[in-house]
């Protein structure tokens, strides 16, 4: 059996990677331990959220599957941050996990260049530093020109529930040990990280009358640009709180928490701490918020958001029952923490290809990230780049000013990972332009160019974009009469606080703008933000020109005495692809950049790249 690309792992990264490859016309094989794994959600029953929602919109604009899947599987939709400005609105939806899995499964089955195989991959096949395939326990060697690893939390996964330690990739699944060890033998560095998940409760055992109710938006907005109107009967979530009693139970048992007993060595995410961590570190807080989220429309299990823990089972039960509404709760599945190997991403290029082993790509949790959306975004990028490489085309690297995906990958290849990485809007210096409403405008062109979307789908999207642009030009050209200022440009008027597009539209001499709801919203946001965006770009663009200055991969940093010692070390470790990336490394100062410029000139290495 010989394929163009083999994707290992059918999680969120692996699925997008495999679909992208197949859609770009390369023969693709997706190998995963079990078909039931496809797009499984081991933690939150939700897709999107702050900054993550923007990622999903970007994945969608690039022809990815995540947006369509969640539109079908969503059981409650909310646009977060509505109270803030539209630049930071983020869509989020509660997902029916089973429906999500089925949706992704049928997308995979429908793809003609894509084959799905159940099995565990235990090693790589290589020849002269180039990957030639993978070794499978069940099928022996499987050959391919490119291999994408999307192994999630499986590499040497070790789960903790109290004193109990169970090797596993996640609950009920064995770890993947051989592959990680083979990679290590091949010279790929690995380190440990940790994450965790809360217990699931039996729905019927919860007294919801004692909790606050949280409903979805009255008018749900879809994630995908390809979804028309969402018609969905939404399901509520519930809110309750821990209290002093809960905290007393935790404190009394803290010596049994693997996090504090020294049993867990990997670093966990500070933005997603376990309840025992919260109680210890913020002991002055009298209570912590808990969201009760259904795992599906008809699921009997409730996810206890906010109560992530690896305390022993008996303590988990006592702790849960100390919470109002949960006094009689039964635990369906216990919470646990998991430690796993990841492969620090200073070892990959921005294409997600390994520096060490040509043709090998890393995507998702294996790069030190956390989250379904972060994984999907990387899977897509790895898939696109593997296919482009097979076609001999220029690699696909998004700039920080183009997309959250660009920020994500740039951060991975320029920053030390000390805890699982997740996206935040504050990581994006071009935040005002990287909005959920304009992901199509920013990225659709790539999807079309790479053939990721069928014509029938992108034509509609481009049509919508064009109508926004036409309307924008009208606002910039047409004058309207205003009581206090005489005549002024319609766009200027719309920039005034408190003036809405409707107000302006009524005054337009050539009549109303023919626009759909989503397009109207996008236009209004654009005009209102224009001035700020220009300023934001001016401050953020200090390094932009340097983004095009490429640095050869074998640049001899060690030989340059004039670089500061710290810069030399960081440059040698990360081997930045451009001067812009070099300048963003911690410890590299302006003067180091100047010194680099001098030597790059000497090496005749100025070349214009297409990044940024």
């Amino acid at each position, binding site marked *: 059996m010989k394929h163009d690309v083999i994707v290992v792992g059918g999680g969120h990264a692996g699925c997008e990677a495999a679909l992208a490859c197949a859609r770009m016309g390369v023969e693709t094989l997706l190998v995963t331990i079990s078909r039931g794994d496809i797009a499984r959600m081991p933690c939150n029953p939700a897709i999107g*959220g*702050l*900054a993550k929602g923007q990622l999903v919109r970007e994945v969608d604009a690039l022809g990815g599957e995540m947006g369509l899947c969640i539109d079908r599987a969503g059981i409650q939709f909310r646009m*977060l*941050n509505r*109270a*803030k*400005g539209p*630049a*930071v609105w983020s869509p989020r939806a509660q997902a029916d996990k089973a429906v999500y899995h089925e949706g992704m499964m049928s997308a995979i089955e429908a793809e003609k260049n894509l084959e799905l195989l159940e099995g565990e991959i235990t090693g790589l096949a290589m020849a002269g530093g180039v990957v030639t395939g993978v070794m499978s326990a069940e099928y022996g060697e499987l050959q391919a020109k490119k291999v994408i690893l999307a192994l999630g939390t499986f590499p040497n996964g070790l789960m903790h529930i109290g004193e109990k330690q169970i090797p596993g990739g996640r609950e009920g699944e064995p770890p993947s040990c051989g592959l990680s060890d083979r990679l290590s033998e091949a010279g790929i560095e690995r380190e440990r990280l940790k994450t965790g998940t809360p217990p699931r409760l039996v729905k019927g055992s919860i007294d919801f009358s004692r909790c606050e109710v949280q409903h979805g938006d009255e008018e749900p907005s879809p994630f995908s640009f390809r979804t028309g109107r969402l018609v969905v009967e939404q399901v509520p979530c519930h809110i309750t709180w821990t209290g002093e009693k809960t905290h007393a139970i935790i404190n009394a048992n803290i010596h049994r928490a693997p996090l504090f007993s020294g049993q867990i060595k990997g670093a966990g*995410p*500070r*933005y*997603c*701490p376990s309840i025992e961590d*919260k109680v210890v*570190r*913020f002991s002055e*807080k009298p209570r*912590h*918020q*808990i*969201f009760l989220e259904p795992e599906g429309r008809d699921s009997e299990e409730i996810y206890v*958001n*906010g109560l*992530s823990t690896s305390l022993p089972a008996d303590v988990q039960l006592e702790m849960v029952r100390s919470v109002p509404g949960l006094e009689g709760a039964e635990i369906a599945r216990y919470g646990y923490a998991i430690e796993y190997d990841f492969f620090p991403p200073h070892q990959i290029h921005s294409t997600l290809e390994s520096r060490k082993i040509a043709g090998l790509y890393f995507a998702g949790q294996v790069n030190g990230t956390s989250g379904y959306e972060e994984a999907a975004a990387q899977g897509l990028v790895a898939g696109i780049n593997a296919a482009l490489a097979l076609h001999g085309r220029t690699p696909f690297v998004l700039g920080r000013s183009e997309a959250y995906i660009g920020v994500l990958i740039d951060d991975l290849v320029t920053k030390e990972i000390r805890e699982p990485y997740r996206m*935040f*809007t*504050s*990581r994006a*210096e071009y*935040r*005002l332009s990287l909005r959920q409403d304009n992901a199509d405008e920013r990225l659709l062109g790539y999807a079309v160019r790479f053939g990721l979307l069928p014509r029938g789908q992108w034509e509609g999207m481009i049509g919508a974009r064009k109508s926004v642009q036409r309307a924008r030009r009208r606002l910039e050209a047409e004058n309207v009469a205003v009581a206090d200022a005489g005549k002024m440009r319609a766009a200027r008027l719309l920039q005034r*606080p408190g003036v809405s597009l409707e107000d302006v539209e009524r005054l337009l001499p050539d009549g109303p703008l023919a626009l759909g709801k989503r397009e109207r919203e996008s236009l209004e946001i654009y005009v209102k933000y224009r001035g*700020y965006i220009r*300023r*934001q770009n001016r*401050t953020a663009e200090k390094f932009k*020109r340097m983004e095009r*200055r490429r640095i050869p991969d074998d640049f001899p940093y060690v030989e*340059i*005495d*004039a*670089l*500061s010692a710290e810069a030399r070390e960081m440059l040698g470790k990360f081997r930045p692809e451009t001067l812009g990336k070099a300048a963003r490394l911690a410890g590299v*100062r*302006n*003067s180091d950049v*100047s*010194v680099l*410029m*001098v*030597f790059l*000139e*000497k090496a005749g290495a100025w070349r214009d790249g297409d990044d940024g």
Partner: protein
Amino acid sequence: MHGDTIVALSTPPGSSGIAVIRISGPDAIGILDTMAPGARAWKPRTLHNRVLRDTGGEMLDDVVAAVFHGPNSYTGEDAAEISCHGSMQIVSAIIEESIGVGARLAEPGEFTRRAYLSGKLDLAQAEAVADLIASETRLQSQVALEHLGGGLSKRITAIEERLRAKLALVEASIDFSEEDIEAYTMADLVAVSDETRREISELLESEVAGGKLRHGMRITITGPRNAGKSSLYNALLGEERAIVSPLPGTTRDVLRERIHIGGFTYYLEDTAGLAEAGCEIESEGMRRGREAASAADLILFVVDAGEGWTCGALEELESHADRNRLLVVNKTDLVPGGGEAAAGSPAGELRTVTVSAVSGEGLGRLREKIFEFTANGEVSGVSRERIALNIRQGMALRRAEEALERLGRELGMNSPAEILSLEIREALDACGEVTGRSAAEDILEEIFSNFCIGK
């Protein structure tokens, strides 16, 4: 890379008090033209005597200038060279004016780097250019560090901390809006924004624009009690400014006056005499004196020739070991030649001066030394960097001030968090240019350590 035009003080002012400012880049000649309005056309590579004026028409200086067309210049680009009078005020004013009309302050070694990149220097010189950049950078950070030892840094750091705390609140409200965490209030932000802007305006007034940096370097007189510091202070000023008395411990507060030496402006400071112990007021006086000395550009350490180098004096001197300093042995009218104290000076001949504050003997030599060790001698690179630092800081603080002004307006319009963040970030970014910290980087750190985040 050479889209823009750069300016810098290229040679430090010489003993004749002349300084050379260089401008290089596509707009170099245009910028010179703008500053010398109505002048006849420039003949390349020829010296012209011209009057430079700012955009308001005020005269900046009477200078000698020349233009060079690329590639026939040092950098290979269009370039202008201005020789002006060597006072700090004049140099700063000309550089600031050229920045105002389109130039950018050069980075360390940038002139040489441009010369190299445009092919004027041969390849083997890359090494040397890189070393130059590195050493100029060291000089720059040394100057910044010295300077930041003082009050300005403390105040900007306090401003930064305040802004960063507020930015963390604003950012947390965006990225963690689903969490149960403290929210910012508009009233609180308005208060902080107003207060901070006021403070920055004050700093600009006192410290940067009209203050010591713009107007000169600081010379602090220190030393044991009764050594004759106040007498020397008066002698250098030429007026009886400080109280002199035979009682030890006469001076309590730091006195400060302007003096001119060789076309340069200095701030001369008299401080309380040093002793092992003292009453509360005396101790406070000594503390202030030491603080002043630690921020000085030059320390004059005065001892009484009759007393010589006591243990206390040596110990005190030791605490300024790494500083730019001159040892002054006073009262040569009583001990001719300064005697033992002069012969056994811990600083060696070059940095020791014998004087009599009463008879005036040696004061001329002292003035020469002061000039030599601040404007011309081994610290000349320092004085050049100081001018650059001053200009950079002024520009940065003005940028912070503007961002806070806009923040005030946005707050008035009830603007959303991401817009408020834009302005706070810009203000922080500008402050960071002064203190060298990158402001926005660690906002997430700040959030994680202050708020309980995570569902």
